[in-house]
């Protein structure tokens, strides 16, 4: 079983490494990640939100739904720890 797990991990790793070769070069302006929404954010975020920090503008406005659930995830983590561990002295 261990051998099988090792071979499966190895095979997956080789496939992933093979796939890495097809990535666009880092910082390539023509890559899909840099040619769809990124230019719009860079050109229009400040005019649309009046927030000079693009990261905050994207995090809080364009990706506000994502950030909301990030907060909820942290909240749930805290809730779980409190509900498991907290006990009043008795």
């Amino acid at each position, binding site marked *: 079983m261990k051998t099988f797990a090792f071979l499966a991990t190895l095979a997956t790793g080789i496939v992933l490494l093979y796939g890495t070769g097809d990535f666009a070069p880092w910082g390539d302006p023509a890559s899909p990640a840099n040619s769809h929404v990124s230019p719009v954010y860079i050109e229009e975020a400040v005019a649309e939100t009046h927030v000079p*920090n693009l990261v905050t503008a994207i995090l809080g*406005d364009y990706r*506000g739904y994502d950030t909301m659930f990030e907060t909820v995830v942290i909240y749930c983590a805290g809730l779980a720890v409190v509900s498991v561990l*907290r*006990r009043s002295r008795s």
Partner: protein
Amino acid sequence: MKELQERAALNPEGDSLIIRTAVRLLVPFIQLYGLYVIVHGHYSPGGGFQGGVVLGASFIMLALAYDLKTSLRHMSERVNVLLGNLGVLIYVGIGVLCALLGGLFLDYAALARLIPMAAEEWHSLGIFLVELGVGLAVMSIMASLFWDLASGGDMEEGL
């Protein structure tokens, strides 16, 4: 951890005068800096998550340098839980409010029906309000995680 708790029980005020004094002097500035990081997120690196962690760390520092009780005197558990819930409520509430006012969920421009301002200004203010909610929630969760994990949940003695 048991050993550390026993050592803390022998010396309830913490062990080093230097550390206690340094922490006592530093904590107000750390909290001020945390607020600055939250409020100044529009113009510099920072925002709700980072500022909230800095605020939470100030209470953890109090608990480490003094003891858990001192930390709980500065921020009571009840208020802490309240602030954590309030933080998430602010975020979700603003989203729902935007939807109720006729915009999309979390579309801050819809809030212009409450207070007339330009849509861009409302986007800016909406981001700030939302970051404030994130900061409150993260601060409260960080502090309560430490309190619960360090004391094993009874809030009697921590590390």
